[in-house]
């Protein structure tokens, strides 16, 4: 697949370093939530043709969709959720991996990443919010493409 077809529904241009800085400075959980919500706002609803059951990953309370494209030595990920909070968490994740190579994605430690941001445990990847299977899919795809 050529890069002409690469899709992108995430408008944030924050780098990983800027993200860490932002969360480092955030005072209290309300501010962290605000940042998450702001990131979520920049994850745009993709074309309806992508929001189909085949692209859904397992989540309990909210729906999460994901399409993975291979892009040279990394992965391009289009993901979306009907939950604002989950959209924000997906945004965090996209920032974390968009500077990573396939080999790095294949061993991505999501738990450590979320711990670095000092997020409440219920904001970390779980079966409930669907992030766990999103990450599992992503890692499997990376391993597959190496």
């Amino acid at each position, binding site marked *: 697949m050529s890069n002409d077809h690469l899709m992108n529904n995430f408008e944030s241009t924050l780098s990983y370093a800027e993200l860490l800085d932002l969360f480092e400075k955030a005072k209290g*959980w*309300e501010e962290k*939530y*605000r940042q998450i*919500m*702001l990131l979520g*706002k920049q994850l745009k609803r993709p074309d309806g043709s992508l929001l189909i059951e085949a692209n859904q990953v397992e989540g*309990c*309370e*909210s729906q999460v969709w994901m399409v993975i494209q291979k892009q040279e030595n990394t992965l391009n990920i289009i993901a979306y959720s*009907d*939950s*604002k*909070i*989950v959209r924000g968490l997906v945004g965090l994740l996209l920032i974390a991996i968009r500077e990573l190579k396939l080999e790095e994605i294949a061993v991505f430690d999501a738990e450590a990443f979320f711990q670095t941001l000092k997020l*409440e445990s*219920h904001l970390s990847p779980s079966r409930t*919010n669907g992030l766990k299977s999103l990450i599992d899919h992503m890692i499997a795809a990376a391993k597959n493409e190496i």
Partner: protein
Amino acid sequence: MVSNEVLLEYQAQFPFLNQSIDKPIVYLDSAATTQKPKCVIDALNQHLLNFTANVHRGGHRLGREATAQFEAARIAVQGFINAKHAHEIIWTSGTTESINQLANILSGQIQPGDTIVTSILEHHANFVPWQQMAQRQNANFCVVPLDESQTTVCMKSFRQMLEKQPKIVALSHVSNALGTIHEIKTLCQLAKNAGAFVIVDGAQAIGHLPIDVQALGCDFYTFSGHKMYAPDGIGVLYGREDLLEALPPWQFGGEMVKRVSVEETTFNQLPYKFEAGTPNISAVIGLHTAIDFLTQFDQSQRLTHEQQLLHAMYDGLLEIDGICLLSPRENNVGVLSFTVEDEHHADIAMMLDQFDIAVRAGHHCAMPLMGALGTSGSTRASIGLYNTKEDIDYFIQSLNKTIRLLTV
């Protein structure tokens, strides 16, 4: 409001509420499962410490003592729901098992073309077993729709469906998603007059309302212990003696037999015929304690307390912009389901969790109802006898903050 003293009496019995002084959780998810009072936890403990033994398998005093307590619990349940006989009380693992097993053994009564009636307000546990039974037996599966209030069954449609002389009518006493108390006595009597087997799912009623199965006139009534302050893993199926006598057993093994040979098996009498395998003895004993716990309070006072909280919560929610209440204010056991304009029900719950408030979000195992209401889910706050006016105030205040936080 009930007096402070009474309230303290309710609360004092729940260790869970008193454990974490600095970060107490406001538990508004009692419709999913209730917290357990100390007496119930103690009863389980005492049983496991002193009387671990199998029941109805003699030989020693531990077994006799466990059996005596086990059968005393059956009599307590009989009294609690005013059944005519103790042997009309069958232990199951919960409401879901009760209904599924019942659907299995009632299959033999259903011919192709027969009609089975349930309602759009049912929990999946009282919907899918009948739907699947109808598919297996080529029967008509008729689902009573909502009435204009959008909170209870449409009586007019129900009467029309009864004209088809359904073989089975399965309805809930109280809707788990909305909290609505249905007009179950009238519904039962109409269904009985039409000649149906009448099954009532009482899972959401048992912890709140006085139940009298004889007055209701249903054939079967079922509920789960874990929604009435008792341990998990235990449920009850009440069935009318003559029907239980006539129906075949649903599971085989253990002490439910009279005699087993290679050629044939004959079955034990009621209630044992329906109780194959080692029962959940400790939970049965815990359920007995939960009944004693509930009946120690003045019932009307307890219900008044829950109603006052419900009304305070309802009125508080009404004042919030963008809230759409799905539950009725009256004829409600204490469950409020709502949606918030532009917000996902899961986001509301996740944010409330951040405020140390436990509510539930989703379809509440009532997808057909959610479909009829045109929503994919709701947030649900539900009341137990341990909740207080402060809980409600804090919930309303936190919900306001939640909505602000979600709309950056």
